């Protein structure tokens, strides 16, 4: 017994080291259940505050560019609005017929958007995440989709009251079903960890016809509305499975410069979830 005690005392620093190393590895391997906890991620208040402060500075630097981008976007929307107005006034000649088909109740729109600002992007390694400055206080919940002006960004992973962490397309753990614009066959979007601008779409049937530059969009998904742009086809690459094609695609969202994003709030998500889970 005394020998054991002296042994423990003599080697106590090693014991402490071993205990701490075991704790660290526990954290590494219990990652999946762990990542839902807010306290040890960049969504907690202290880290979120730090990232937000540093972001205010960088945001100021980007103001001019963003302003220009908004102006361009505004011009584009104006043009669209003008075209639609024209179209509408054309149609007003047929008012009688059109009105006959209108329903008299105000339709509930399924999707609403929560605008948020990116406070931190990590893209130094393969485990990329994005932190944004809206959280559960603003109605953000895990598993909501996130888009930018250009296209799909990712999915909300964790939320705290004021911040949330998004798992973007450029994370190897991200999966999403997508399809080519002019077809109905779906494939699976993933990222191979090599290039921040290029993702892959796999499991596309062999007979699928495509051209470089074709648009890849979301197909039916629990998280995103249909037909949101994901990216544009670049080329075919060798796939692991001979029965399917794999394509490289250029991601529509530029992760180097993404600042403003929209979180998609699907009003029917809970209802659909409940219904699907009610099946025994």
């Amino acid at each position, binding site marked *: 017994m005394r020998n054991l005690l002296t042994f423990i005392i003599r080697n*106590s*620093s*090693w014991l*402490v*080291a071993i205990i*701490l*190393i075991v*704790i*660290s*590895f*526990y*954290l*590494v*391997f219990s*990652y999946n259940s*762990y*990542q839902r906890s807010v306290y*040890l*991620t*960049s969504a*907690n208040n202290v*880290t979120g505050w*730090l990232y937000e402060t*540093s972001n205010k500075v960088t945001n100021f630097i980007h103001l001019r560019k963003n302003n220009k981008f908004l102006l361009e976007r505004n011009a584009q929307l104006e043009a669209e609005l003008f075209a639609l107005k024209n179209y509408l006034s054309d149609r007003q000649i047929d008012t009688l017929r059109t009105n006959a088909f209108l329903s008299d109740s105000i339709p509930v729109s399924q999707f609403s958007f929560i605008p948020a600002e990116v406070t931190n992007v*990590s*893209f*130094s*390694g*393969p*485990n990329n*995440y994005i932190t944004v400055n809206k959280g559960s206080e603003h109605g953000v919940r895990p598993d909501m989709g996130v888009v930018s002006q250009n296209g799909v960004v990712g999915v909300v992973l964790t939320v705290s009251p004021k911040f949330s*962490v998004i798992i973007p397309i450029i994370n*190897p753990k991200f999966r999403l079903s997508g399809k080519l614009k002019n077809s109905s066959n779906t494939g699976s979007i993933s990222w*191979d*960890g*090599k*290039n*921040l601008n290029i993702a892959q779409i796999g499991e596309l049937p062999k007979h699928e016809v495509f051209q470089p530059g074709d648009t890849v969009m979301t197909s039916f998904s629990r998280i995103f509305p249909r037909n949101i742009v994901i990216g544009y086809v670049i080329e075919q690459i060798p796939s692991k499975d001979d029965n399917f094609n794999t394509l490289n695609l250029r991601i529509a969202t530029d992760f180097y410069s993404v600042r403003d994003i929209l979180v998609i709030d699907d009003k029917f998500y809970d209802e659909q979830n409940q219904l699907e889970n009610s099946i025994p």
Partner: protein
Amino acid sequence: MKAISILKEIILFVILVLLQVLLFNRIAVFGLAVPILYIYFLIKLPYGRNRFYVIISGFLLGLVIDIFLNTPGMNAAATTIVATLRTIILNLFYPKNEYEELVPNIHVSTSAFIKYTITMVLLHQTLLFFIEAFTLFNITSTLIRISSSLLLTIILILALDSLSIRKKKVSG
């Protein structure tokens, strides 16, 4: 004397965490090399520092970095192991029984310091790589990334250390 050096170490800790999180992790030279500089804290602890102190501060350092980077446990594990083996590595390159408050630096016995730094950084990054590889894929690109980060980190640490020494000499 000791209280002052501990205060200095705490300041160094905070500065290195901020630098790592706000600056170095956003640098990716050629999209590959990411400097992992926070290990400089362990390198600069005094020679005769208590082992518990070294191990626990190493663990805390890694954990704080993990919390910021959303990589639970990875940096903490690697840094704790490096902290545990630090005394052994120090004894490899520095003669024993020098006075306890000696802070390893590039000015005194330059070649020993360079060898010591390279060993510490190499060990740390290799561990990080292997811990990441448990959850990872794509060995070749990771290897290129690791070796280029290694080179960049060592160069930055040596540069940083020679800078800080010059400042001290001027101020006395």
